[in-house]
């Protein structure tokens, strides 16, 4: 267990030292190699994800679980697309299937949130108290600012909305950016010190435990 923790710490600290201090060429070259390895491992991780999903669907078909017929659709489309792509990722049919089947469905699924957000706004978005009121008024002004007809119906929303976005909202987000950057730095120190091992699947130690 110690070796993966040491790998994390050494890799991370080398990346940081390289940035702030002049390093020998051997160290810089080693860092370039490490980054290149991480890109390859990341690609492998995505392959792993698709394999895990495929195994899930194959098992569903094999065990005839609920709605297993749809899993056949998954398996057939996965195998067909993967085989075409393994031949060549520039294969015309491979790219056509991707552009004209997956892309429109993905765009449509992603756009479903427009309907849910409107329905939720009608049901739930209430000025129940001053906090909700601030949220409601700011979102109202900004949405009217963004749609061209808003500027015609209520001209003041443009300068007010622009000011809200640049200053109060900008200040709020700046606070969040500073806060999260401190959090990232704190997380890094904990991970490199071996105190946080969740990324290795190990629950954090409690104080007093070995």
């Amino acid at each position, binding site marked *: 267990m110690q*070796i993966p923790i040491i*790998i*994390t*710490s050494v*890799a991370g*600290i080398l*990346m940081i030292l390289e940035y702030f201090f002049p390093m020998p060429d051997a160290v810089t070259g080693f860092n370039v190699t490490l980054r*290149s390895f*991480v*890109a*390859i*491992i990341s690609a*492998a991780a995505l*392959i*792993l994800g*698709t*394999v895990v999903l495929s195994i899930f669907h194959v098992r569903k078909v094999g065990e005839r679980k609920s709605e297993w017929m749809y899993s056949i*659709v998954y398996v057939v*489309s996965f*195998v067909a*697309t*993967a085989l*075409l*792509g393994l031949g060549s990722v520039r294969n015309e049919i491979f790219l056509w299937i991707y552009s*004209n*089947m*997956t892309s*429109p*469905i993905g765009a*449509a*699924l*992603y*756009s479903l*949130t*427009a*309907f849910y*957000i*409107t329905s939720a706004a009608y049901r739930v978005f209430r000025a129940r108290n001053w*906090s909700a009121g*601030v*949220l*409601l008024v*700011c979102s*109202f002004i900004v949405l009217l600012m*963004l749609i061209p007809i808003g500027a015609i119906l209520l001209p003041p929303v443009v300068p007010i909305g622009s000011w809200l*976005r640049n*200053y*109060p*909202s900008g*200040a*709020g987000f700046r*606070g*969040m950016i*500073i806060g999260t*950057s*401190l959090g990232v730095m704190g997380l*890094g120190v904990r*991970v490199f010190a071996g105190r946080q091992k969740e990324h*290795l*699947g190990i629950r954090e130690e409690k104080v007093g435990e070995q």
Partner: protein
Amino acid sequence: MDSFLFGLIAGSFVSIGAYSVLIGDNPLSKFTEHLYTGILGGYIFATNWDYIRSNCVNNIAQGQIIYVVALALSLMLLSRLKPEWVWMSRYPVALTVGVGLGLAIRTTVMAEFLSQITATVLPLTNINNLVMVIGTVTATAYFIFRTEMKGAYEYVHKTGRVFLLAAFGVTYGQTVSFRFELVIGRLVDMLRPEVIWYTALMLVLVAAGLAYGYRTGKIKWYSGR
């Protein structure tokens, strides 16, 4: 019919299948979702394998033996498929997390911590600068500090909360517009003059099919709440 037009029509059909989920889960929407994940899974599999082949396997073939280590680490990741071998996957994960965190931290200090603080040091000569300084300080305090809310700090906390609420309200307004743009983007292709009648025909067929399914009880009708 050329492949571009055929593609638009096919895209329109599958989009209607995806949108049919708004009425409630039905066989067409489930078919479309599984088709989507299957094709996308195959696409991701093939393109990432192509990357590994071009930038790792080919490097090894050209004599850069060090890339054998990268290939080995990638294969060790696949050990997650067998619970007894999961320990092997910790090595590539450890490397990825270490490098990623190191790269993020080393520039976060400058880019997101110091730069943002420097940008907040403004002369308090106009209302905008005042708002920016007070807003940043109080919002950061709200985010970070866990001091008991007493005395002056209570006002700092409340002020920070107002600025964060303003930020979330602005984001919500922008998000609503963004969601509409997503639908419009899809509808623009589905309602093109050369495609609109195919779209209308598909809509009629889907509506008829679903109506038949609901009437005969073959498809479950969900209440609208």
